[in-house]
């Protein structure tokens, strides 16, 4: 068990888990209290359109994914606010499906098999690169800087957007910052751990933390701790049982979610 930590890939996996947990806890909290958990799925799936586009045009996949995921998050925000007032979940479903279909077409147009794309679906903690870690660390820094600096605005806009606007808060800007950060975190986490794990780690730790905390700051801290505990626990368990770590981590998260609901009632 301990000897596993001497492998570089395991060290990378542990560092990746820590970096992911911070982003998940902080942004996941905002996603959950804004009732936009589905946004995670929508952005993650729609970004396949971006991956496909990048594959077709020979751009770095990350660039395409960032572009389309930002467009999706901000697009959902724009369509479901202001005078248009589409239901957010409808907007998310539309982006979700359109993005995936576009990705498929782009890959088909380019022809051939796209192995890189598969790694985005089922990315693995065990193959994280140095570059990924540097990117994830930088993103964590950005998240902490923006969420820390704009904490009172983000809380107020999430709680009561209308009142915030009346008090002079630039609610559209604050919402866009939140949505853009969410998109970036999702793409980063997909690269590290794959799509399914993003959905689990962005929502479950925050949802559980919400049951046991009374303020956003504590909820962010507790979700980060939970995300980290789930990731490291899952990694260890997967190593011992010789199972894929992503799936083990998600199963642990799911178990925590259901047990919390039972305990809470």
């Amino acid at each position, binding site marked *: 068990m301990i000897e596993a930590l001497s492998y570089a890939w395991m060290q990378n996996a542990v560092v990746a888990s820590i970096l992911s947990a911070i982003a998940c806890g902080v942004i996941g909290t905002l996603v959950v209290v804004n009732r936009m958990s589905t946004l995670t799925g929508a952005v993650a799936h729609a970004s396949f359109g971006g991956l496909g586009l990048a594959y077709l045009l020979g751009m770095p996949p990350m660039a395409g994914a960032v572009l389309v995921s930002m467009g999706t998050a901000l697009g959902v925000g724009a369509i479901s606010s202001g005078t248009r007032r589409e239901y957010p979940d409808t907007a998310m479903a539309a982006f979700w499906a359109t993005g995936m279909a576009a990705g498929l077409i782009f890959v088909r147009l380019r022809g051939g098999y796209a192995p890189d794309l598969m790694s985005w679906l089922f990315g693995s903690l065990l193959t994280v690169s140095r570059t990924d870690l540097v990117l994830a660390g930088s993103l964590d820094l950005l998240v902490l800087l923006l969420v820390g600096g*704009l904490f*009172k605005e983000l809380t107020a806009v999430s709680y009561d957007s*209308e*009142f915030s606007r*009346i008090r002079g808060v*630039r609610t559209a800007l604050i919402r866009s910052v939140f949505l853009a950060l969410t998109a970036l975190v999702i793409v980063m986490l997909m690269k590290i751990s794959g799509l399914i794990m993003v959905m689990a780690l962005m929502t479950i730790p925050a949802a559980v933390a*919400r049951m046991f905390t009374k*303020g*956003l700051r504590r909820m962010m801290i507790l979700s980060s701790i939970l995300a980290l505990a789930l990731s490291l626990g899952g990694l260890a368990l997967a190593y011992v049982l010789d199972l894929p770590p992503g799936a083990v981590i998600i199963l642990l998260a799911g178990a925590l979610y259901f047990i919390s609901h039972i305990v809470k009632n």
Partner: protein
Amino acid sequence: MILPVKISGLSAGYRPGHPVLKDIDLEIMPGDFLALIGPNGGGKTTLLKVILGLIRPMSGTVRVFGRSPGDETGRIGYVPQMIPGATFPVTVMEVALMGRLGLRGMWRRYTPADRLAAIHNLHLLGVADLAAEPMDNLSGGQRQRVLIARALAGEPDLLLLDEPAASVDQKTQESFFNLLALLNKKLTIVLVTHDVGAVSSYVRTIACINRVLVSHGETLPAEAVARAYGCPFELVTHGVPHRVIGSAEGSGDSGGEP
């Protein structure tokens, strides 16, 4: 003189071609305590939203402290009708602090002065002992009082309240209106309400709105109101009991017992 609110020829609504409010002229004087009454769907809340700058007028002009609605940031305190974000993890203190948002720019933390103002107003509303509680744990009446404290924490010159007493019991209501009367010595108040009977001995003027401004003055012309509501309407104006019985059946919008 710069009035808190000066509205002329206002039409406003949510869908083009379907104004909820038509041709409203309304001036609210400094130090006024205005009760805004009228039937559901008559446009009371819409009028508040125009004053707040949340809805743009279709036509007409609106001036709030001599400026466009939304430009006078910080001078209006607002207590919404709906209690926002039930099941949102936020404490009473954090909500009260939101009243100070306009006074602190982006990237700034709340200052000790902000905390003082928040706790002072929570105290004024009798909910200071709940400051550390999550909003979720509060009763409807307690939440409503926190939202009023939030509005007051911004040190507004004009306080807009949308049916603030709806989820509060009779006794709390009385002390609440007494508090408003006290606050009225320093600030202008506009109170949207169904229950004109309960507020009539506190307010200075009453405006009745049913898509148009039916009446505005120190008293309420009984027949005009009965016409606006189209149903029996029970009210007391300035301590003098009036019973106004309209023509139609039902008592959907009647006030409380005098």
